[in-house]
């Protein structure tokens, strides 16, 4: 991959990676860090990656970076007692739209509820649902990205949606009732 191909790929895929990282982590700065790290790694390994496997490769790197970041934050929280992430998230909501895209983009009420419910799922299930429904990847590609087999992905997505429904009903019963009525009408 030469510099020109790399630039084209960066232009094409940067928003996809940023969006996945943001919806996975729900933190703008972390999502930007992950995106940057993904493309730096792509540049480092540009000659070792097969041309037709670049997209699954960068998604796998993005996913692994997200997991690493979550683990690091958990460790920080364990040692320091307070999550810096939460602090940043709250301040960003209050002060700056740039740091919190949910204030700049239009989301339906149900989308906001689903994004909150996704945070309660395990990381693997969350990634499967985002990769399949948001990114539009098929089961076999998701298996390649998450280094697991196709059946595990199918079962994971099925269970993930069931969990999501249960969480939505349990955590936001009134909102779900309202949304269901709106769509039923």
């Amino acid at each position: 991959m030469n510099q020109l191909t790399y630039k084209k790929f960066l232009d094409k895929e940067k928003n996809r990676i940023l969006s996945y990282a943001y919806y996975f982590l729900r933190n703008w700065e972390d999502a930007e860090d992950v995106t940057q790290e993904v493309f730096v790694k792509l540049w480092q390994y540009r000659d070792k990656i097969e041309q037709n496997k670049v997209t699954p490769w960068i998604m796998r790197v993005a996913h692994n970076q997200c997991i690493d970041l979550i683990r690091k934050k958990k460790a920080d929280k364990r040692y320091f007692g307070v999550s810096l992430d939460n602090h940043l998230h709250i301040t960003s909501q209050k002060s700056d739209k740039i740091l919190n895209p949910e204030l700049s983009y239009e989301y339906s009420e149900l989308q906001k509820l689903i994004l909150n419910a996704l945070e309660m799922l395990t990381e693997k299930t969350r990634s499967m649902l985002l990769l399949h429904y948001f990114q539009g990847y098929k089961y076999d590609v998701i298996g390649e990205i998450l280094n697991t087999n196709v059946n595990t992905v199918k079962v994971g997505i099925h269970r993930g949606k069931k969990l999501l429904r249960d969480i939505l009903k349990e955590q936001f019963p009134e909102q779900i009732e309202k949304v269901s009525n709106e769509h039923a009408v």
Partner: protein
Amino acid sequence: MNMQCDEIQSLFDPLLDHHLKRGEKSKIKNHLSECEHCRQVLQMEKEIRRSLSHLPELQCSEELVRRIQSKTWGIQEKEPLTEKIRLFFQFRYWKIVPVGVAIVVVAFLLFRNQEIYKDQVDSVSYTQEEIRQAREQARWTLAYVDNKIDESEKKAVEDVFIDRLPKIVRDCIRNAVPIFKGGQQ
């Protein structure tokens, strides 16, 4: 919710992905006409799918793109040693390099031989006394043969002298021979 509800709900994914087997669609339809719970689940399933697939794609900031570019182009300047070696062996004019080297070597050897020969010639030096003796010898010899041999023999003797003696001695001889005999005396 009963056993049949579980079975029907497991068919919702194939239903929405249009992968149902023959007869399954009517089975679902019949069940939904009687089961309010499964109707709600199917409705929720559709809403979750739609919400996830229509999440807004977030836009990378210009600043992030600049950061990525500066990091990646910066890495290019600090390529590892293995990368430098690999690029070195990818030099496209390798085929003409041996020819160039051969030309340089031959030119060097020729020049060097010329220098050695020149040194050898220059290194032949005679003392003033040797020159005087040679001149004296030549004068006597020529004077002797001049009276004893005919023109053709004299020419042959002169040739022998010319071939055997170094140039400086031949010059001495020429200087010593009288002008009317072809010398400069």
